[in-house]
């Protein structure tokens, strides 16, 4: 399997009166089609790492290669385009726009990709049906449960066939039942579509859905997780 993400010596320091060294030199490698969970205690740097890998933030130092491209060397505009064409995002707080229906929300990435009206509507409906929301197409966020909102977010993340889906604690605000549904959905998408998924979670129970767990502790990868630049992944 080829590498989808390769991060070298990623450091992130948040400036301030007392600078916070959130990431202290992370080496990470994730293969194409892999479902990886990044775990660790609160404050261990797992969300910060996901933000660096997904172009939502810029590391203080290091190198990140995604799909054979050094993404830190891209201009702001190129980064935006890269996010659109390569990444899908699922946030803890769903990050849905309150004025848009489920169908419109999921259609947005396709609109931006230049897909025609007929095609993006068809594709958005299909993906919403895939996540079990075929009956909620014209509902807006406030008309949906938390689990349904997160499934809309997952559909939006998947609709344009991204190379990687980044999910930042997607079940943190959901009850057990809804969380199970979401995790099963991720596992199904990974298995059926070969979707590369990078998941940040603090739920030990989620380990059973993923191919591999990367555990962070105080800004460093914990020993024994076997993620040293993909050497042990082969």
């Amino acid at each position, binding site marked *: 399997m080829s590498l989808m993400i390769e991060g070298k010596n990623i450091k992130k320091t948040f400036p301030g009166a007392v600078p916070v060294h959130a990431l202290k030199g992370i080496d990470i490698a994730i293969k194409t089609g892999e479902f990886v969970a990044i775990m660790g205690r609160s404050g261990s740097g797992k969300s910060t790492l996901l933000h660096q890998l997904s172009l*939502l*933030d810029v590391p203080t130092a290091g190198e990140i290669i995604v799909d054979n491209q050094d993404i830190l060397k891209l201009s702001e505009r190129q980064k935006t385009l890269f*996010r*659109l064409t390569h*990444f899908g995002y699922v*946030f803890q707080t769903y990050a849905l726009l309150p004025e*848009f229906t489920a169908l419109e929300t999921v259609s*947005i990435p396709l609109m931006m990709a230049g897909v025609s009206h007929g095609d993006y509507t068809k594709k958005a409906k299909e993906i919403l049906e895939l996540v079990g929301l075929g009956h909620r197409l014209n509902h*807006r966020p406030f008309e949906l449960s938390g689990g349904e909102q997160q499934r809309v977010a997952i559909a939006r993340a998947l609709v344009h066939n991204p190379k990687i889906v980044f999910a930042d604690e997607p079940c943190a605000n959901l009850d057990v039942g809804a969380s199970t549904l979401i995790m099963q959905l991720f596992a199904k998408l990974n298995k059926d579509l070969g979707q590369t998924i990078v998941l940040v979670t603090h739920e030990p129970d989620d380990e059973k859905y993923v191919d591999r767990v990367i555990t962070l502790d105080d800004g460093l990868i914990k020993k024994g997780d076997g993620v040293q630049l993909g050497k042990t992944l082969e």
Partner: protein
Amino acid sequence: MFKTIKNWRISWFLASRSILRGSKGTLALTILVMALSFINIIFMASLIFSMMTTMEQSFRQQALGDIVITPEDATEISFQDQDASSIGLTEKKQDYNPKYIYDRDSVQEKLLSIPGVLATTAHYVANANFVYDPENDGENEEKGAWSVKSINPEKEMTVTGIHNKMVSGKYLEANDRDYIMVGRDISGGFGSPYVEESLGGIQVGDKVKLIFGNGVQREYTIKGIFATKNMLADMTAFLSEKEMESILGAKNMASEILVRVENPGQERLYIEKIEGLGISDLKMKSWQDFLASSASFTDSFMVINLILSGIGLIVAGAIIFIVIYINVVNKRKQIAILKAIGMEAKIIVNSYVLQSMFYAVIGISLGLLFIYGFVIPYFLANPMNLPTGDTSITANPDTLVTAAISLISVAILAGFFPAWMVSRGQILDAMRGE
């Protein structure tokens, strides 16, 4: 090109959903602020514009006609001269000018031969000191100096509208020799703002003594008092042509000829035609040029109008900027989400620009609807009784266009800046609401 259209379509898609499904309260408030700001600017500007127009038109209707013809080297008989003379009771106006238009009847005939010239009226103009002795005992005399004009009543009625503005007594007749007709600012009654400088409430039937610049003194009975609310007219007294000719020892001459034309606004064309008649030694001015050369009040009004409009625009612009700015800043999380999922910043920014333009256009439209549907019809039916004349509200198209363009521009800036700033910032900070 295709990409640009696609981007604008997405911007409009985002904007339309935000407008249609966003907070109805915010939408209503923003549009209301827009409409009120527009109305505020237009109302003040229109009021001043209408006052100016009313004043100017009253000069045209009551005092000057469309074209004023004077002798080539006549001393200017101006509004300012009369104003000054009316205030200085002891300062006798003695600049009696003997320069006349000769062969008046023939000149008037020639003027009327020009197609489009509807009517003419000729005046002798003289200055006189007025003395009114209410008790007829030589004490407590009321005095003042005003302009006296002669009229041929029939011809005068075809050019000026003073005959329609009689508030007491009767209009002069051609054969009246012992009668005089005065404006309300000479009489001091009928709402005149110049009571202190007047003859203290002289009424129809009262006698007044006039001392002319050439030394002639005569006593007249007040036949009528008119109130045009035009200062130039209301500070003038009228005698019959026959009487004035006997005072001045003149015959078939005039100090000025006023001309009424068919198409107001084309005075210059008529002046060219009059010049083509070959009448020499005449000076011709449109009523606007006559006013411009003799009075600076229109300039003052223009300056006031400009200042008020400018302040109104700045205040409206600031309010609109703040309202839209707050609205957009409150949506920074949404902007960050769109940017995070790969939407180009310019598409996001444009969507807010479109929203702001929508607020502006709807607000301005409602403002226009209010102005044309209510304000203008109301004041047409109920003109304001201002010292400058009965004033209704007339919107100046230039002001409307300037105000509309200015407000739309401000709205665009107010939508653009915050969206641009947020779209340039860190995605995570905006998403966290920092």
